[in-house]
């Protein structure tokens, strides 16, 4: 049996180009949806159900590309990630797939805790552990539950703040992307990567808290 190595590197198609858009992060989501619907009406496989196989195949490829592109562009975070991938950044470290894989295999994912969060994360993990241990004994301490709920609210608020911050970085990006100053672009790109990493770290925390509270 041959061994297999899965290489997560993907060929990145330019989803902005699918919609004839420049690689800018601010976009008119209403117009995007209208274009998506309009193009779907013309290229969905339903419109080619009676066409010869070659045309059916081409329509299927086209409409899958359209669907994939719309999915990536309509969501602000996915859109930013896609742009960064186009700029050669590998976001794998923080991706949900990597987290899942690490959790499933029982290994700690090497994930860098953003330094400003160190203290809070330490506190939170203690509380989570206490809650889980308590639940195993069949009890749950209302103080811990309250503490976790407060922490969750706080993290939710910082997620919102990060999204706002991200949107201001978008403006910088959109301003420099066309003149194309390489150094400037690289600096803005790095800012976005750092922000997304922090965001995904907090999102994982929120998910852990939710799971612990729901269990």
């Amino acid at each position, binding site marked *: 049996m041959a061994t297999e190595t899965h*290489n997560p590197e993907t060929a990145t198609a330019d989803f902005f*180009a699918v919609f004839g858009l420049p690689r800018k992060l601010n976009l008119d989501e209403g117009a995007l949806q209208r274009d998506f*619907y309009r193009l779907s009406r*013309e290229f969905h496989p339903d419109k080619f159900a009676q066409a*010869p196989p070659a*045309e059916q*195949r*081409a329509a299927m490829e086209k409409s899958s590309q359209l669907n994939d592109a719309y999915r990536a562009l309509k969501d602000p975070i996915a859109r930013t990630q896609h742009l960064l991938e186009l700029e050669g950044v590998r976001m794998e470290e923080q991706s949900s797939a990597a987290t899942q*894989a690490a959790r499933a*295999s029982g290994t700690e994912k090497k994930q860098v805790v953003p330094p400003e969060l160190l203290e809070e994360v330490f506190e939170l993990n203690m509380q989570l552990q206490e809650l889980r241990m308590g639940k195993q004994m069949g009890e749950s301490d209302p103080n811990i539950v309250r503490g976790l709920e407060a922490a969750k609210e706080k993290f939710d608020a910082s997620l919102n703040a990060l999204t706002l911050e991200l949107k201001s970085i978008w403006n910088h990006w959109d301003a420099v992307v066309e003149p194309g100053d390489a150094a400037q672009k690289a600096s803005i790109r790095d800012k976005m990567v750092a922000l997304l990493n922090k965001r995904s770290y907090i999102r994982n925390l929120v998910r852990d808290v939710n799971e612990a509270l729901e269990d």
Partner: protein
Amino acid sequence: MATGIQIEPLNKTDRVVGIDLGTTNSLVAFMQGEEPVVIPGEDGSNLVPSVVAMPAEGEPIVGNAARKTLVEEPERAIYSVKRLMGRSAADIQDELKFFPFRLAAEQTGVLKIKLGEKTFTPPEISAMVLRQLKRNAERFFGAPVTKAVVTVPAYFNDAQRQATKDAGRIAGLDVLRLVNEPTAASLAYGLDKRKEGVVAVYDLGGGTFDISILRLHEGIFEVIATNGDTHLGGDDIDNLLITIALDDIAGDMKLDLRKNGEAVQAIRKAVIEAKIALSAQETAIIEADLPGGQKYQRQITRAQFEQLIAPVIQRTVLPCKQALKDAGLKPEQVDEVVLVGGSTRIPRVRALVKELFQREPHIELNPDEVVALGAAVQADILSGGSKATKDMLLLDVTPLSLGIESLGGTVAKIIHRNSTIPASATEHFTTGVDGQTNVAIHVVQGERELAKDCRSLARFDLKGIPPMQAGLPRIEVRFLIDANGILQVTAREQRSGREAEIEVKPTYGLTDEQVETMILDSFDHAEEDFRQRQVVEARIEAETIINALEKGRKNPAWALLTADEKKDIDRLERELERVKCKEEYKAIQAATSALNQATTRLAELMMEGAVATALHGKTMGSAAEELGEGPTAPHPFAPAEVINKK
């Protein structure tokens, strides 16, 4: 269409019907003018019970007529076979406790069921139901029916979908599309009303449960999220009642009927009648004649019934909540709730739905017929549309995430659930050992983190990789979930540029050869019939591609082909014209397929040109000019550049 790619309307004889292949009942419908209508059977009934009986001699009996056999000779009849579609002997053990499925002694590959003296796979049995519907439609139209849209539960996985498609082929139907049942229901619901807004479809049928949340906008039916349970429905409620009755009988009458197929069927019939009565009355009586002339009788109140079924219907709550969560919606953001499936007649189910979505659900549609009516609407759309459907388009999603098993048995998800289909993902693989020429990929479906907890879909063996140093080959594999929700895989070794050969080992399911043998074995088609039908179909396909090519030559994309490509196409077309009149369908198929292959790039170029036109409002002519004339360059076309040019 302004795109230059035109589809000829079908001739009248090529009518496409819509079929609801249900666990308990099946229906066939078609679009009559602007209205979908159900085609009744010979007995005048719209519903064909999904019951098949196999007499000692003669043809299988389907529907109401088979019910008699079910009670009198249960070993010759089968119902609820939909529960077995796309499953293996190992994963139906739970079903065997409650359903009188008789597995064949020998189980290799696809599950085999004993019916009378013979054994059949679930797709073959479903094909008998489909064939009955086909006959009903043909009798109604007085003309052959060969094309259909068939509905499946939204939460059906790849294997279950493939099995349904196989059933269609065995029945002599070209299944143009598999449509998700709740989505089909929304089409029927949204047809006359020109609805806008968010609609939730709660579909609790005989054996399956689905919840789908859609956004309706100017004729576009966009599914945002779907969830469900493919083994939850009215059957489970019946089984609870049957268990009670059998326990009663064992206790009070000291009679163990658990292994008595006839008696269980008589009780089953009785509890179903009581269940149905309880939707309208406060009490009902379960009443059955038992062997030995004894009679079983028990009164049941609606309150008792509701308490009994609470755990079953409670199982629909979590999928609903998950679907709302995935859609990013709160219950109050849902504008309408539509009920589908016979089990939604139960008042407690309606109350639960009302509670969940905080609004009164729609009950004006016949929950037994609405899926078939929606299938007829989709059939009309696929036939090129009519006045009633010309602006309608269905954008459905894949219900389950698609993943690849990676090191350590974990799953790397490559297409997430609720992605609009067609959806695709491209992954790269390499070798781990020097000189390795094969790479195995295990594809699974499901949400769990470990491959062993997901549904194994298939193992793909990429073969013929040129021997190289480990890590050097670069095999690009494209996974594409088509509009039916079925996975298609293609692979290419990038350094050698060769199409990699893929051997697919479906974990469950029939091979093409097996399906072909089953078509031959099926009762309606003696070998000669089969061959003739194949010849006729092969000729139609040949005509289609020749006609399309004629149009393709007038398309600006034609000018972009190389001289060699054009010469090839011309030669293969002449070859097809030559073999078309012969009686050998395999030769016609081969020539059609060769011409199709040769025109693949032309079709892609036409599509790209049409997209450029649609995006920028250019005429095909000017779009083609921008693409540049290039009869000598092998690949003059770079889609991304064209689109950016504006």
